[in-house]
């Protein structure tokens, strides 16, 4: 097991290297740079800026300098947020994103699996249709619609919740962004669970277990669930990586100080280092979560063993 984990982590290094290299050059294909503002800067001032940030160097040299810094753990300065380094920006925001995303993941997972289980056990009955229509709506209505609607109802009309901003991070402050972030994922989990559960319930070993007269709780909870969890666990990796690294949409609608916005903003403002920083961050999350999921897979499915 340990060798498997180490081997996987080892193979992540060339992956990260390729990702960083690609994004470094792709970013610079877009016209303009971080200092091309709506109002142009006088050439002399542009020169000072370019010199300060090393843009006067040839591209290959900029790349080598950047890679050298990254290897030492330095993601460079932000070209837009001039008081801050990329590590500083991402470091301050990541805590908020992880807390919000973690809560959303929990809500989505628990709520989605429960809803999916109920729907599967009541297959083709009213409750099933109700849950599945809800899940379809959850997937199709984008959160930039759900978010403002929730705010209109619960913050403006009822004054129960906060309309935006982190506040003190209390339930009242975070409930709406968590719901907006969780709903689409909750719907996915519900659909996955329902499908997997229906398939598992019709498997031979379940029929045998039932024929033996095992109690329903044991049949569903122990035997069927174990098999049905596999697709859910597979989806957990990209879902967790996505939720924990923040969502630009939800963070913008609810003014959450997380890291999700930096990718979009960074790309639009040509804040190269910030974009690369977020790319590295997301890549690390995806790699780590895929690894975790593979480990869990091994524990759940005897056919998969990492020895």
């Amino acid at each position: 097991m340990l060798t498997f984990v180490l081997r996987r982590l080892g193979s992540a290094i060339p992956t990260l290297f390729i990702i960083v290299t690609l994004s470094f050059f792709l970013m610079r294909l877009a016209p303009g740079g971080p200092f091309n503002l709506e109002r142009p800067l006088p050439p002399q001032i542009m020169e000072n800026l370019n010199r300060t940030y090393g843009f006067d160097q040839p591209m290959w040299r900029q790349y080598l300098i950047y890679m050298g810094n990254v290897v030492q753990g330095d993601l460079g300065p932000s070209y837009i947020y001039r008081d801050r380094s990329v590590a500083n920006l991402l470091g301050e925001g990541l805590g908020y994103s992880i807390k919000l995303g973690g809560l959303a993941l929990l809500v989505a997972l628990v709520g989605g699996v429960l809803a999916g289980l109920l729907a599967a056990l009541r297959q083709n009955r009213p409750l099933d249709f109700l849950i599945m229509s809800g899940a379809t709506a959850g997937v199709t209505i984008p959160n930039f619609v759900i978010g403002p609607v929730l705010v209109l109802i619960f913050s403006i009309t009822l004054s129960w919740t906060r309309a935006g901003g982190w506040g003190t991070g209390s339930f009242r402050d975070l409930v709406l962004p968590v719901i907006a972030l969780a709903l689409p994922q909750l719907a996915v989990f519900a659909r996955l669970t329902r499908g997997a559960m229906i398939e598992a319930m019709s498997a031979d070993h379940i029929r045998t277990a039932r024929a033996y007269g095992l109690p329903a709780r044991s049949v569903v909870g122990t035997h069927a669930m174990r098999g049905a969890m596999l697709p859910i666990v597979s989806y957990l990796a990209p879902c967790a990586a996505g939720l924990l690294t923040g969502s630009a949409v939800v963070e913008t609608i609810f003014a959450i100080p997380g890291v999700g916005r930096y990718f979009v903003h960074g790309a639009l403002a040509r804040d190269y280092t910030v974009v690369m920083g977020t790319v590295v961050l997301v890549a690390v999350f995806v790699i780590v979560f895929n690894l975790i999921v593979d480990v869990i897979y091994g524990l759940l499915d005897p056919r998969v063993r990492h020895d």
Partner: protein
Amino acid sequence: MTGFRRGGLRAALILGALMAGASPALAEAVLHRGNPGEPNSLDPAQISINVESFILKDLLEGLTTFNAAGEAIPGAAESWEISEDGTVYTFKLREAGKWSNGDPVTAEDFVYSLRRVQDPAVASKYANILHPIRNAKAVNAGEMKPEELGVRAVDDRTLEIVLERPTPYFLELLTHSTGLPVHRGNIEKDGAEWNRPGKLVTNGPFMLEAHIPNDSLTAAKNPHYWDAEAVKLDKVVFYPVEDQAAAVRRFEAGELDMIYNFSASDLERLRAAHGDRIRATPALNTEYYVFDNRAEPFSDARVRRALSMAIDRDFLAQEIFLGASLPTYALSPPMAGYTPAQADFAALSQFDREDQAVELMKEAGYGSGAKPLDITIRYNTNPNHERVATAIADMWKTVFGFNVTMSNQDVTSHYAYLQEGGAFQVARAGWVADYGDPENFLTLNITGNPGFNYGKYSNPDYDALIAASYDETDHEKRFQILHDAEAILMKDQPIAPLLHKAELWGLSARVKGFEDNVNNEHPSRFMSVE
């Protein structure tokens, strides 16, 4: 029923007790102020627009500053003298001027700060605002040492600034954020983190208490400020809300006391709900279309004039911006003492303008019965710019029968293309004043203006008048020269001015002391909450 009443009473008592317990916090006067975005920096040398300056001007005070009405008033300097030739400014600093750590504000502080802005290693984006100071340009280019900048401390409280040439709007320039002072000891001691909460030393009415990027920035009253007694707020919390719709929702939920530049489509609805607490004030900015003066057919002034005349600006202002923008026929917006020179066709009705436009276009050899034109309008991606472009394309199609297409790019790409001298036909551009003087608008189109003169317009008469305006020290005469220059520009129409955008503010019923003004300066120092 009685039981319910008792329960209600008990709840009220508990609530009352809680509120009493929390009363010290409640007694604090806190203004919750929406800010148009997250500040890019809290270093006066690094910032550019009001996203930062709304905050920084509450924290730091320059030699001159703004009152609630947006007029320049004495700030860290209590008075000044200007030499007869207009090139030497001698400022007398306030005796009571103090930094938030108790240090006195000295002339040496301003010498340090002004040199720092010009230091090429600091790479200040707006260093050029203060290039009128003697040797500033050379210092900024690294050709001279910062010590050679024309700024000197005569004594602790006397600061002398020598200019390259008379600059009649120099006091206005000093109100720009590049003129704000920084504390030398603070920067030298705290290095890269000098402007973080708990470290930043300020000389303005407030000091930096807390800052969570993209969430909030809390400024607390500075007890050492020379006029601290008159500052009524204990705290100002700035909330960077970049999403205009989110800002409106937070305002309506009562979380924000002030919101700025919400979408014009909310204007009517908010006015109905909040009455005169929703403000739309004309401001120092101009939205315009540039013609590429280098190539046919736009090198012909008649074509440019005809196209400009065919634009129904009232339609744009009323139908697209719902009254949150005002139509204009001049480049410079009106400002204290200056009446802009409007294009001659401003006086006509739109109906007559269109008739004359068709004639003029025919004269130039285009339009119905003559050569047709294919025109492409370039603009930066934005719903409002798209609506304007669509409307103008339609006007040109209807009036001249031209084939008009549109193309858009994100804002960085759009301006990068124009600044690098890319060829185009018609392009959208906008300008927001750095300081309240028509010169700031009229220099955009002088020959050889690097980067700003997108259409490469060139008229020696115009250039000569702008050049002459710098040597004129008499305020009124100078404005007359600028007015004459603007008249030439409007006759040639290298650009078609369209609109002046109004600054939109929403105020909660708690906010007192807010005054509308054309400079869009609203220092928290003069505000209070009830």
